[in-house]
């Protein structure tokens, strides 16, 4: 088990190192742009997954966090503030905003649908308000165009994506992650076992908003030319949901796989069929939810099981595969010490 763990870790490090070195390999800008999009969409899906996948609170207004992140980062950065400060503010402002919906919805124990509708409404309000208040202009000073370099942006966005995945991983592997899953699975039972459901939901929301804001900050740093309200538009709310479900909801690698798959397929479909790609993604989303609720992660597990001839009853992974994130390898080694009677 440890050897296998070591190999996976080595592969991971090698993969990250390779990604880091891509810009110095003299590749085309279009490949870099494609990778950057994958990083940003990975962040978008991973940040949504913490609240929607692990804690079971479906947020249909993730664009609000993402959009606020872009707005704050853009204003600060183009206003001459240091990048680090701009990104930090891009994370903090959405957290404050998320409490507007989170505290009332979770405090009043408005379950599921109410929170979902509330997030959708708030993100739409922001979308319309920003569209009315801020001018429909794109901002691109000459100096910025002259100085624009893809390389440093690539590295900062890659680092942000790694940070996002790392935070998500650390959170769901922790005690709080267990509590979040318990709240998702059964709130009453969780409460009866000493888990403060309100606090766990609020924490998941805050982390989701923080990382969603960081995604926005990264996007604003990368893409300097877009309308102010564009990043608040509904696709930024719906795409993280689609990607997470396609990849595997409630897992760490699901959103990453979903995002890579989504970006590649979208690029290809947009070239082939243009706007019709929306219909294709809609249908794909439905099919996944209906027939493959664990997404690509589940599909992979099923295939692997066929080839390794593992009996279905003994799996540690659940169909939505959160088992892998909960039990970890420590459990498997613990199993040897089970005092059997």
């Amino acid at each position: 088990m440890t050897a296998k763990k070591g190999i996976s870790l080595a592969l991971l490090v090698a993969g990250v190192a390779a990604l880091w070195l891509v810009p110095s390999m003299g590749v085309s800008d279009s490949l870099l742009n494609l990778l950057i999009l994958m990083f940003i969409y990975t962040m978008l899906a991973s940040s949504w997954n913490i609240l929607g996948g692990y804690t079971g609170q479906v947020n249909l207004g993730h664009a609000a966090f993402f959009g606020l992140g872009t707005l704050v980062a853009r204003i600060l950065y183009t206003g001459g503030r240091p990048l680090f400060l701009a990104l930090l503010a891009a994370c903090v402002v959405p957290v404050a905003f998320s409490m507007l919906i989170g505290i009332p919805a979770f405090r009043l124990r408005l379950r599921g649908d109410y929170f979902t509708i509330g997030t959708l409404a708030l993100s739409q309000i922001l979308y319309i308000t920003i569209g009315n208040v801020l001018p429909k202009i794109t901002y691109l000073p000459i100096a910025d165009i002259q100085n624009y370099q893809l390389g440093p942006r690539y590295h900062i966005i890659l680092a942000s994506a790694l940070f996002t995945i790392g935070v998500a991983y650390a959170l769901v592997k922790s005690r709080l992650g267990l509590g979040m899953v318990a709240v998702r699975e059964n709130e009453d039972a969780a409460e009866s076992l000493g888990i403060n459901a309100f606090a766990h939901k609020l924490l998941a929301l805050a982390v989701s908003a923080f990382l969603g804001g960081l995604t926005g900050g990264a996007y604003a740093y990368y893409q300097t030319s877009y309308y102010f309200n564009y990043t608040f538009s509904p696709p930024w709310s719906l795409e993280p949901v689609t990607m997470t479900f396609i990849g595997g909801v409630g897992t760490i690698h699901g959103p990453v796989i979903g995002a890579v798959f989504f970006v590649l397929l979208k690029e290809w479909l947009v070239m082939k069929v243009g706007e019709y790609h929306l219909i294709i993604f809609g249908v794909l989303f439905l099919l996944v939810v209906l027939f493959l609720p664990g997404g690509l992660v589940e599909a992979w597990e099923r295939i692997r099981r066929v080839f390794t001839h593992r009996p279905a009853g003994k799996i540690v992974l659940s169909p939505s595969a959160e088992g892998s994130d909960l039990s970890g390898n420590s459990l498997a080694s613990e199993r040897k010490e089970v005092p059997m009677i």
Partner: protein
Amino acid sequence: MDFLAVEGLTKFFGGLAAVYKVGFTIREGEIIGLIGPNGSGKTTVLNLITGFLKPNAGRVTLAGRNVTGLPPHQMCRNGVARTFQLTKSFLCCTVLQNVMIARMYGRSPAPNLRVAAKEATEILVQVGLADKANFLARDLTLMERKMLELARALAAQPSLLLLDELMAGLNPAETEVTMQLIRKIRDSGVTILVVEHIVKAILGLSDRVIVLNMGQKIAEGPPQEIVHDPHVIEVYLGKAHHA
């Protein structure tokens, strides 16, 4: 000293008094049976004690401390754990994870996941689910889910355990095993309140029995006395009509 004291507990659902001025006490180390016909308010009393419902009037005192109306998670941290009549397992988690979660929270949480996994495994052995540890909770039978409820509640390390119809739906052999398990748990130092409407099971288990009918306490005492109480017989069997 009274470990748990309930005084004048009252809960209205609309105009209906689901529980009306119910009072009783439990001493440390006792097994108390709470019985009554369907709809007599047993589960509501349990929900009032554990904080899932807030009483309209009355007081709940735990080890001398007023705990009336505290939310469920705080009641659990104060040492009150419960099972649910309709099992509420974490269905997408494995049996072991279910118990581990409880072990990481509850009254005295395990310091880390390793310890939690080890202790959760021990609890699963105790309730006879050790060989199902890596099964998903959704794949368990009714009996197994009930035992998982119990395992999870035990993992919260309660000083007071409330069992809501744990034995309902079990066959006689399973009931017998469960009764012995409950006695063992009591002997390990846990005070227990058993809610059942199977009179037989509760009579063999309890030190004292409290009888509810239509939200009110109608009798309290040792099991032998309760079965001969004319009031209780009337509630369960109906009134005798004399010609």
